[in-house]
């Protein structure tokens, strides 16, 4: 330990040296995650803004692009993700109310399972299928004659679709990594009703990733004529 030990503060095993007490540490962690999520909102915000502007510039092409996506898979994944937010919240609640380690771990593993289902559906039924259909920009994207003059902008829609859902999926993968760590920490008995801040803070992140999808799903799959009048 590099820090000199002449400071006679009562430091528990989970209290880092720079903090005075556990409450300060927990508050710092929570504020840090909220601040990070603000950054994340701006990160996705730039993309959402660009998407919105191009959508308004090229409504017909973006409508065609939207129709290339399968609503049933998007809807399934929306349900899966909302379910995973529920299991995440239940994991936190279980730790908070002093439920057994097995209960917390079960909910965490369920959350991971649902996260994996989401990524699995995305990879197998959507992205891989798109690849076979030659509608992945940069990987053999073919203009279809039915698109006519809209073809370049249809490709642009797909660029945004893959970049936004890809960035979202990357966040899911990071979330799965965090959940793995949480499972290990829980198994080692690190959490109790007095100390469960890592679970709570990770929960914030997981819910945030969920919320991003809640916006992505209608923006990419639903709006733009499929169910509105004047469409097809």
């Amino acid at each position, binding site marked *: 330990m590099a820090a000199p030990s002449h400071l006679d503060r009562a430091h528990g095993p989970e209290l880092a040296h*720079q903090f005075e007490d556990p409450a300060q540490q927990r508050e710092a962690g929570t504020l840090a995650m909220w601040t990070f999520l*603000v*950054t*994340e909102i*701006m990160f996705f915000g730039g993309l959402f803004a660009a998407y919105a502007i*191009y959508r308004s510039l090229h409504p017909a092409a973006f409508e065609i692009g939207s129709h290339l996506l399968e609503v049933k898979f998007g809807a399934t994944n929306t349900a899966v993700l909302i379910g995973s937010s529920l299991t995440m919240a239940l994991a936190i609640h279980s730790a908070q109310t002093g439920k057994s380690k097995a209960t917390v771990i079960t909910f965490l593993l369920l959350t991971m399972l649902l996260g994996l289902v989401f990524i699995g559906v995305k990879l197998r039924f959507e992205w891989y299928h798109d690849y076979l259909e030659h509608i992945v920009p940069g990987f053999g994207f073919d203009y279809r004659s039915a698109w006519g003059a809209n073809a*370049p902008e249809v490709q642009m829609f797909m660029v945004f679709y893959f970049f936004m859902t890809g960035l979202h999926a990357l966040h899911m993968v990071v979330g799965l990594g965090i959940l793995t760590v949480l499972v290990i920490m829980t198994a080692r008995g690190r959490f109790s009703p007095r100390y469960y801040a890592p679970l709570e803070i990770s929960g914030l992140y997981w819910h945030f990733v969920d919320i991003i999808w809640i916006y992505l799903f209608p923006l990419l799959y639903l709006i733009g004529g499929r169910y509105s009048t004047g469409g097809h």
Partner: protein
Amino acid sequence: MSTAVVDVHQTPPGSGVNYLNATYGIKSWLLTTDHKRIALLYLASITFMFFVGGAAAVLMRIHLIEPQGTLVQPETYNKLFSTHGIVMVFFFLIPSIPAVLGNFLVPMMIGARDLAFPRLNLLSWYLYITGALFLLYAILNGGIDTGWTFYTPYSTTFAHTHVIAAVLGIFINGFSSILTGLNFIVTIHKMRAPGMTWFRMPLFLWAIYATSVIFILGTPVVAITLFLVGLERIFHVGIFDPAVGGDPLLFQHLFWFYSHPAVYIMILPGMGVVSELIPCFSKKKIFGYSFIAFSSMAIAVLSFLVWGHHMFVTGQSIYAGLVFSVLSFLVAIPSAIKVFNWTATLHKGSISYDAPMLYALGFIGLFTMGGLTGLFLASLATDVHLNGTYFIVAHFHYIMVGGAVMAYLGGIHFWWPKITGRLYPDGWARFAALVIFVGFNLTFFPQFMLGYLGMPRRYAVYPPEFQVLNVMSSAGASILGVGYLIPLIYLVWSMRYGPIAGPNPWGAKGLEWQTPSPPPTENFEEIPVVTEEPYNYPGTAAVTRG
């Protein structure tokens, strides 16, 4: 370990256990989580980048001595100004005061042992280094010629240089900024010592806080934008390319949404430094504390509403231009509030002209010139004439070099005795400050005139009638270059041979001066309890709280 403990207050200065000699070896530095050591890691790395960017500037000024150019091909000249801009903006100015002085001072000024997240802080430095390596790779392998703004479609479609490595470097470095800003925000909110209320904080911290807000709100947007540029180049897909329905103006909007606030990332911490120096060397309480504090926050907010003034001549809607023009004028208000309060602090103070104070006074004058010339550019009509000329170059160098770099050097000279525990030779330091001031003005004042006469920026050649002013500018640049080398030499010298400074050589207020120099690893023996207002200098009695 406990037997090795020394009470630093009882030992002669310089011989106690402090953050510099607590542990030894390269590993103890590269794996340190001590905010003070990380500040020094940043100091070394940004100083290196400063001289990389400076070298590019020197080559440019040598080239421009003759109207037809003396040194390089036009293509190389493009790479020189691009390198200079990218290195100086992203790898020197943006991290300079926050990452070096902010890292060192934020915990000490609020009475904390470290930042809230020391390991995250170290990660920030590694991200900076990784980003810098990408950029250096791009420079050494042939360079980048897009300018620091990476305007599309040139950067995405036509440039045949190492754009991808450069934007990746900036992207990675962006996360360093974001994490540093996040760390500062949480630390300032949650780690203040008992009695350290928001309005007892040194104004430097208000400035750093405002800067951090810009870091976390702006940086992600430029990061994602440059990432899109990279994607467009790698996969040859249309995002900003007008040939496939893309909008190059959208790139400029997204770019300046960050890059205009980035100007305030550079200047706000400098304003914070000056707010510390002026009261200390006037031996007087700062005038109008709360006005200076809130003007920092006002600048941070306004900074996000003015980006369109970079796009007056791009075909942006004239109504948008009008609104952006008015909003840009508004920035002058909080900026002027600061200048008035600093000068009011000087009024009837007992002023001493130590080196840090010379930089602070230089800052006030040069920043004011930079700010006032900004009003020319915020006016739609004059901007049409001045846009794209050397007037712009002179204007932003008065802010970034005359302002930010002067403040950075002033801060380094002010806190150097605290950082190293040693004093530098005072005469040399004042001399260097003077050389830098003279060199700076000789370099950039002629550029105002060149710009007004119509010399466009970014050109490798110019009409012969502009030669006199260009030679003056180049002569100034060489003086400025020497001015920057002098502190490098005597500061390095002082680390080993400088006289012992003692805890508070300037008689300054603030918690960082109440601990030994250099400070112990955990900054304070006991967390201090703050009971007095900031800047409680002797000259306070005559002035009531602004």
